[in-house]
């Protein structure tokens, strides 16, 4: 049984790890005809020459950019009040998936969640009550992408089947959701991420085939495709801008590209990560975006300045980031890491303000709720957690008749408070002192 598991893991891992330049791989195959062999050598040389030239140009460009980079974000943010240490706590644990949770998304009603897992199950939860409301079994395994429709009436998901399917959510208990399934997107490799645009009618997808695409849900027609990544595209996010026309994608080629949805053109490109970019998310104002990568760093890129403006990293963090998201004001950046933790960063000052333990395997997905009241994480330990900030941490020590209450505030300006009583205080007295309990 164990060996079988092992085998399945290897088989499933293969496409996931399949992240090399497809063009280069094709090239390495040697032809049979001698003339073509000489041609190939020449072409190889040209390729190498072009590569070195492009590297030189890139470093020159970085030099020029660096000349202007004599001020850092945290310097400008010096006068801003520090945050102190936050304590995060799990408020809900959603158990029900039989295998690794790979992706999740919030509903606009701020309490429902859709999640997908390795065994092909897609579950819709009311996270507030922890009840499962709908469940669908996909015909494929490794459902790496799922999204909730803006109306709350449908969910989209896909993975190793290379497709993105939309399931309208029906409240009829007897109805089989899978019957009403609608196949929308078709790629030539696995689906890594999907997102509805402003309505239920269009879906944006990214795939292991190196492209992103915009689809019409009703007809399944391809509206626009986006070519430019040199390897698998792993993530995407839509811009919250006024004209709502752009999105950003990140891929295994270490690049984050900003695209114009209407023309299909790549407007801006950023390449400072040292490894695959697993997650991208826009800053709430839409003028910047954060990315999380296998190189164990999160970075902030500004679209107006056309450059990276901050790096969030620590020597003690050596595992890759699988997903990132901002708090509502953009002051906090949450990162889910492959070492089972969640690190919370102060976006302006570049420091880490909190670390959250609790998951028993890598964190694969993380999203802040639409109204910013909590954030949810999904993990390979088969669970999802909804977490929040703790206002006070109460430690109670009983020592015969002595009872000490220790209050450690999480707000930066409040001092710690310690109360000692010779007897257990009356309920009314306690009420006065306990403020925002855990």
């Amino acid at each position, binding site marked *: 049984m164990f060996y079988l598991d092992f085998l399945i893991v290897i088989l499933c891992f293969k496409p996931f790890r399949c992240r090399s330049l497809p063009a280069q791989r094709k090239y390495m195959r040697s032809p049979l005809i001698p003339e073509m062999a000489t041609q190939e050598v020449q072409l190889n040389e040209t390729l190498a020459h072009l590569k070195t030239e492009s590297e030189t140009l890139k470093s020159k460009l970085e030099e020029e950019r660096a*000349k202007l*980079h*004599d*001020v*850092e974000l945290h*310097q*400008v943010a010096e006068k801003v009040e520090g945050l102190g240490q936050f304590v995060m706590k799990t408020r809900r644990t959603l158990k029900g998936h039989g295998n690794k949770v790979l992706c999740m998304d919030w509903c*606009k*009603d701020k*309490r*429902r969640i859709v999640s997908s897992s390795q065994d092909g199950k897609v579950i819709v939860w*009311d996270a*507030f*009550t922890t009840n499962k*409301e709908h469940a669908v079994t996909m015909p494929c395994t490794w459902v790496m992408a799922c999204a909730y429709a*803006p*109306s*709350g009436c449908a969910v989209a998901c896909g993975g190793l089947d290379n497709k993105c399917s939309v399931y309208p*959510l*029906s*409240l009829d208990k007897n109805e089989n959701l899978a019957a009403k399934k609608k196949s929308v997107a078709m790629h030539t490799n696995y689906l890594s991420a999907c997102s509805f*645009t*402003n*309505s239920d*009618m269009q879906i944006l997808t990214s795939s292991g085939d190196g492209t992103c695409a915009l689809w*019409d849900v*009703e*007809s399944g027609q391809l*509206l626009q495709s986006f070519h430019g990544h040199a390897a698998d595209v792993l993530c995407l996010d839509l811009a919250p*801008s*006024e*004209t709502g*026309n752009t999105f950003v994608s990140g891929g295994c080629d270490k690049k984050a590209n900003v695209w114009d949805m209407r*023309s299909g053109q790549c407007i801006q490109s950023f390449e400072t990560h040292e490894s695959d970019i697993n997650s991208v998310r826009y800053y*709430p*104002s839409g*003028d910047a975006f954060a990315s999380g990568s296998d190189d164990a760093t999160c970075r902030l890129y*500004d679209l107006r300045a056309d*450059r990276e*403006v901050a790096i969030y990293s620590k020597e003690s963090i050596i595992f890759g980031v699988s997903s990132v998201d901002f*708090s*509502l*004001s*953009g*002051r*906090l950046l949450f990162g889910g890491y492959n070492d089972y933790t969640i690190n919370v960063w102060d976006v*302006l000052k570049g420091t880490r303000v909190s670390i959250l333990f609790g998951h028993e395997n890598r964190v694969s997905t993380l999203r*802040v709720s639409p*109204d*910013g*009241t*909590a954030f949810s994480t999904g993990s390979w330990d088969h669970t999802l957690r*909804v977490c*929040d*900030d703790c206002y006070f941490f109460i430690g109670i020590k009983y020592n015969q008749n002595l009872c000490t209450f220790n209050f450690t505030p999480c707000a930066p300006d409040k001092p710690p408070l310690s109360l000692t009583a010779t007897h257990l205080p009356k309920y009314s007295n306690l*009420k006065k002192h306990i*403020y*925002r*309990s*855990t």
Partner: protein
Amino acid sequence: MLPKGRDIIDWLIQKYNVSEEESLHVGGMLVKYGYIYPLKEPRSLVLRPDESPYRFQVSRSSPIQYVYLDTIYLAKKNIRKQGELMEYEKERYSVLHKRINHTWDFVVMQAREQLRASKQRRKADRIVLECQEQAYWLINRPPPGVHNVLDVGLERPNNFSARVTLVSGFIAFIYFLFVKYSEQYLNHDPIMQGCLPSNPWISDDTAHWTMNADMVPTPTRLRVERWSFSFMELLEDSMGRREFMTYLEKEFSAENLCFWQACEDVRHGESSRIVEKVEDIYKNFLAPGAARWVNIDSKTMDKTLEGIRHPHRFVMDDAQMHIYFLMKKDSYPRYLKSDLYKNMLAKAIVPQETKKSVFPFMRRQRHSSPSPAQAATQAEDGQAKGAGQADIDRIFVITEINRRTQLRCLS
């Protein structure tokens, strides 16, 4: 978020710790010397301490580039408006022609390419680039009789340029905008500051969601305050949009918002209904003598009418953007100063903070809520009944229903 005149002055006050008067002066010099250029009235190089948008000028480095850029700019102007170069520009053009005669074809080709590429850009980007160029050349090649601010007298060996410092000032300004954004939204961020009456995930009480639902009679104060942060915030909140519509009706310009909503519907709606929706829009908003005729400039109108002959998803984009920016620049600021908004703000509720129960293990009952999928089915039934309504209101009603089902938040 384009820097506004007011933003730039605040930034200078903060950065250099100076008074408003001095900041205005320094800022004014920055505009005069071309480091910052205005998007509104680009020929008037003045820093206005209000909502006028500005942009930082791109630094143009080597002298060789300068010559080419100058030539390309004049060539573009010549191609675009035949024979409309001013006298001093014509002189300069012929001088340049002699100077780079050997690459003249390349330059003209570049100019044509840039013109062609700019046509494909969105209108907003095009306007910004044109302002940028115009401002740059106004300063670097002032018309005869205009004071040349770049005159430094006799050339000195140490004429080092302040340009690099100012371009990095641009970066510092962007960081400043980050700080400002975080500060503005701090009170609205529940994870940072908590939320009233309580965070539902902690207290198990959904009062926060109920109070902020779509159809409350009285909104919360934070919600109404948020409408003043940006036009996008106002439109994204369905209650805010309804309030704005009421205001526009009083001003007799409600057709602008209706038009914008109808265009949004075309852009994000079903492909199969695009032709039908575009026809409706034409009938109601664009046709001469239409019941709700919208005021678009003739160039955009002509282009849109041309496009309507072969309707596609993005055919209304230019017109929609024109009306959006019209509302944003004109009606939105006036709405924020209006009695309607001020009254809404005054009567908005500030919820009382709920004190938590002493014993955390005494948990409240967590109530479930109706699924959005259910609510949508009900709305569809309602839509079927109302099929006999007048055409004029049909677009608006259906858009509203779609909008409500999309943005509904239930408790």
